[in-house]
């Protein structure tokens, strides 16, 4: 694969005395689909939260597209109680709020669906484009809805932007096959569709890297199969890199280029699906002895 788009270096996340992620280093190459698996409580979601700015990691560095995106070292009270390794290796502190990270091109979905549930599917996607709005709130309020200006030769910038955003939202929903539920309230949609919408909404931020946290949770095998196809398709269409957490092994094995497996916050294995499914450590910690295929 080409350049790495994401690199985590020795990320440690400590809550009180619990070290949820312990010196985790991994990398995701441009255009790859990489999966992160591991037993419950291994620290997968926490790792995602460190990347996306929801948590500030206790130690370590995350690099996005060759740039430091997040970096921290134990400081303040943490200095004394730090229980991870690689202390003192990092001195830089770079912290970004989740919105800044999204602005850099990293979008995510959540383990528990977090749609704007009383808004329509269309509005959900529209809102996700808000961060690209360039005009200020004054001209936005004056012109964004000024439809009567449309006949003018050059529309006000705010109006043009609004029209573009709407156009793009329609287009996106069409591309992901959600056109027919555009005006439905997101919260009323069937579960599977909600998952899809959540992904569509993430896409609307124009990400280069898409993080999916258990996208197939609560789906039956049939729906899961549809989802795998969907992920592969959007990856191609939007030239994305996908990094996902998933417990459905058939999905993981089918579409990932590489898989990382962690346990107790530490990396225990890395490799392609074949290597991982036969890795004794992974079987021991995660898959269990029986043939995993029948479980799903």
């Amino acid at each position, binding site marked *: 694969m080409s350049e790495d788009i994401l690199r985590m270096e020795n990320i440690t996340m400590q809550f009180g005395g619990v070290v949820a992620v312990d010196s985790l280093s991994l990398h995701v190459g441009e255009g790859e689909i990489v999966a992160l698996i591991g037993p419950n409580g291994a620290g997968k979601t926490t790792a995602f939260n460190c990347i996306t700015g929801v948590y500030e990691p206790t130690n370590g560095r995350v690099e996005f597209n060759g740039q430091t995106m997040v970096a921290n070292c134990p400081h303040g009270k943490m200095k004394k109680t730090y229980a991870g390794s690689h202390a003192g290796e990092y001195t830089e502190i770079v912290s970004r709020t989740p919105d800044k990270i999204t602005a850099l091109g990293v979008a995510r979905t959540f383990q528990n669906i*977090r749609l704007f*549930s009383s808004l329509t599917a269309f509005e959900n996607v529209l809102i996700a484009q808000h961060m690209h709005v360039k005009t200020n709130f004054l001209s936005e*309020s004056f012109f964004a809805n000024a439809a009567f200006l449309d006949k003018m030769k050059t529309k006000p910038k705010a109006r043009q932007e609004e029209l573009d955003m709407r156009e793009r939202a329609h287009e996106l929903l069409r591309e992901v096959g959600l056109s027919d539920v555009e005006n439905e309230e997101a919260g009323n949609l069937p579960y599977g569709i909600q998952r899809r919408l959540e992904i569509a909404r993430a896409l609307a931020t124009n990400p280069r890297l898409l993080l999916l946290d258990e996208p197939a949770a609560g789906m039956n095998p049939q729906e899961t199969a549809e989802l795998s196809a969907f992920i592969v398709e959007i990856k191609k269409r939007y030239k994305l890199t996908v990094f996902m957490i998933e417990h459905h092994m058939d999905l993981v094995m089918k579409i990932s280029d590489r898989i990382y497996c962690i346990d107790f916050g530490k990396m225990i294995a890395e490799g392609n699906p074949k290597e991982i499914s036969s890795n004794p450590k992974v079987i021991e910690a995660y898959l269990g002895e029986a043939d995993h295929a029948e479980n799903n």
Partner: protein
Amino acid sequence: MKKDIKKRNTILTIILIGIIFAYMLILQLNSASHSYAISIIERSAIYAVVAVAMNMLTGFTGLFSLGQAGFMAIGAYVTAILIIPVESRPTVYYVNGIAPWLANVSLPWWLAMLLGGLIAAGFAALIGFPVLRLKSDYLAIATLGFAEIIRAVIAAPGLNQITNGSYGLNTIPGYHSIFTPVIVSIICIALMVMLLRSSYGRAFTAIREDEVAAEAMGINLFKTKELAFIISSFFTGIAGGLLAIYMRSIDAKTFQVTLTYTILLIVVLGGLGSVTGSVIGAFLVMGGQEWLRFFDEPLTIGGVSIPLFRAGFRMVIFSILLMVVVLFWRKGLMGGREFSWQGLINLFRRIPQLFRKKKSGEGAKNE
């Protein structure tokens, strides 16, 4: 088809606006005999502005703020101080005198009001830094506390020469015409609606729905909340200025927590997240309070005086009515939706249907 409906709606809207303005014109032309109605309409329009501003925070952005009275106080005092005629200032500040630097500063009402709004917005920007990090009830209590602090500061003896402390301000020039406050209110509400319908407004709603997700969509929580807070406070300050001119005399006691509660009741009655709801709510609450006045007067039917009817009964009835609305129309009258002609027409259409259903139901029973 769609176009026809749009056309019909536009025509209906124009007719409605026409009727409203014609009515106001009639009131205005006979202002002496209609002063009661005029004052109710003016007051309702002013409260509608605050209600919409509060709704923008509470209903649209999900920030439960109870600081309205404080921001109104700022707007009202700034406006009042700057528009009291210079020659009557000595009598207004008859106890402590007016600060010399202020004594001759005077502005036209609209500029003073704008300044009042801006200063209120400035305060909002300042306190936004600490308090907007708080969630729901904590935010409510903190903003409520802030309003109380403002009130204490206004009444503090140290500011006697500016705010006239305990003595309040009066001889504020009033409105000459009902159109002034109504048109200013309409402009304010229209500006807020335009903001709410823009991308920024959608970002507000996103925050209300789910902060974590909104942030993950690239919306800067703090900046967006601060924006909503500042703008809402700006219009609340303007409404304070409008109120000062309406009342012509103000003091710190005007801006107690109960004022905020009244506005909250308006917002809830109208429906959280509905601008038209807030406007309708303002007129209903203000008008209703007045309409219920007959409860306060002794009532005699056929020579027997009904013992319940005496002073204070009106407010008992009013509070019971409010409770009924809260308990039985949980989402308020508009329930987060906006007024639309189609909705109204559907409502009318449903009425005969209800009758028909009832009839057929009865028929079934008879068989």
